[in-house]
């Protein structure tokens, strides 16, 4: 059974004013347990509005969202519970740290869940360990941390709620390659250990190409494409027409095909491209 089911979801901002804007336009989609779902689309495509419905931060103008088979807006309690089950890490979460100490910041979610002091402490230590936040930093002020450390603290704060679904909006934006790699690895670790579901919103096609088991492409408030990375990046021309890029590997593969090198169309990682080229050469000439 799917963990999240969205039925005919529409969201209109500033309805009835001259600024009225349909941000999400009649979307229906099911998200399976354990999926790593990559969500791509340019700014204004509706993807951020969409994800804020999944943990009841926004209420649909029309349509319904189900978590684990239950309508999340059935009652105040269901809407509250879904916030703990669907953890949302916003873009640049490091700007949202507000407590005096790192410990208190990570403890904020579990505390709101009504856990005991002992349980809270356990969750904080566990989440901090998981996100590579050293114990020695737990009593420091979040303001003293580096950018990369702050982001890991913010992610630990969401992980401490042990959500079944973890949604991350641009988790690697502004990080250097090493920082990017370590955050992506953490996301994969979290999924492996918890068997949770991951939604990853990213402008980086290379990140989603590597991680996602399925991709949704948003355009003008609708889901324009839904498929495996191979299926999606096969449609490079359409992606470019929507103002999106394709992974560098796809770009190079397309350029090679134009030059008569006979490699498959659905290539989206450098590793796979390299293997294809090596085996093509071993198997004899190409042109």
């Amino acid at each position, binding site marked *: 059974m799917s963990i999240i089911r969205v039925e005919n979801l529409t969201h209109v901002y500033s309805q009835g004013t001259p600024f009225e804007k349909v941000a999400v336009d009649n979307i229906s989609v099911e998200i399976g347990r354990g999926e790593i779902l990559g969500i791509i689309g340019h700014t204004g495509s509706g993807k951020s509005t969409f994800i804020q419905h999944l943990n009841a931060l926004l209420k649909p103008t029309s349509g319904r969202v189900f978590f684990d088979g239950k309508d999340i807006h059935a009652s105040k309690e269901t809407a509250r519970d879904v916030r703990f089950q669907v953890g949302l890490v916003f873009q640049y979460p490091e700007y949202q740290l507000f407590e005096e100490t790192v410990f208190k910041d990570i403890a904020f979610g579990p505390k709101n869940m009504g856990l005991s002091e002992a349980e809270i402490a356990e969750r904080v230590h566990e989440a901090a360990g998981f996100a590579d936040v050293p114990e020695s930093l737990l009593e420091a002020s979040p303001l003293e941390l580096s950018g990369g450390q702050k982001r890991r603290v913010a992610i630990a704060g969401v992980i401490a709620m042990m959500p079944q679904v973890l949604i991350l909006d641009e988790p690697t934006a*502004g990080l250097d390659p090493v920082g990017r790699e370590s955050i992506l690895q953490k996301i994969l670790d979290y999924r492996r250990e918890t068997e949770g579901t991951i939604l990853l919103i990213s402008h980086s096609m290379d990140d989603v190409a590597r991680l996602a088991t399925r991709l949704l492409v948003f355009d003008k408030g609708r889901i324009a494409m839904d498929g495996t990375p191979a299926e999606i990046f096969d449609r490079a021309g359409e992606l470019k027409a929507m*103002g999106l890029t394709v992974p560098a590997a796809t770009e*190079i593969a397309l350029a*090679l095909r134009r030059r008569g090198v006979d490699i498959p169309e659905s290539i989206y990682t450098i590793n796979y491209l*390299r293997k294809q080229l090596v085996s093509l050469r071993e198997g004899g000439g*190409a042109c």
Partner: protein
Amino acid sequence: MTDPILKIEHVSYTYPEAEEPALRDVTLEIARGSFVAVLGHNGSGKSTLAKTFNGILIPTEGRVLVEGMDTADEDRLLDIRRTVGMVFQNPDNQIVASVVEDDVAFAPENLGVAPKEIRQRVDDALRAVGMYDFRLHAPHLLSGGQKQRVAIAGVLAMRPACIVLDEPTAMLDPIGRREVLATVEELRRERGMTVVLITHHMSECVDADRVIVMNGGRVALDGSPKAVFSQVETMRAEGLAVPETTELIYGLRQGGFDLPLDALSVDECADAIAAIFKKD
């Protein structure tokens, strides 16, 4: 170097209360009219270095000369800031007014430029970044890329000879990135401005005249993009990725392909690989 606009001489910098210096004995010259990209991971000192270029930070040791003016000389600070303009990562933190053209006029007004001249400078700066049609818009309703171009126009209105951009595209989507980079490219080509671009994105360095890689507060590599990115092992040891094209070629070379490591653009890379298959 015949005519450097910036001279960085044995510069070290330690932040107040920090134990380790952020910059250690850096010596560099930046040629007038050149496009220099500065790479390095978080904490490598690249942003600190950029902030010494117009006196936001004054070196703890050594000195920075802007057109011969020492940034430590407070009497020259205004002239220095007029010569070297800075654009930062987050456009929202750089916009002060509620109308685009007022925002762009902010700096020249503060510099005491005559009103008539301000009008001309503002229009000129907004045209240079392709935002003239938005001059009466509210900045907060613009896209990230548009806001960043307004921030660049604000710097241009001071008519600097050199513009330093500290990760200007980090917070932008692919369209915004393209807009900002195209704007930067035009400033260099059309106006002969000196451009220093601090970035994480290898692909933004491919067109630079020169790439400087910072690590541990020092210059680790310095050369043309082709020369720097060919040093795949060194780049990796510095915790940096190389462009995907280089990554592929490096991997293929290990698999016995005879390919040049400096085929940086997608077309160069595809040409080189296709040529091998033609030969076979």
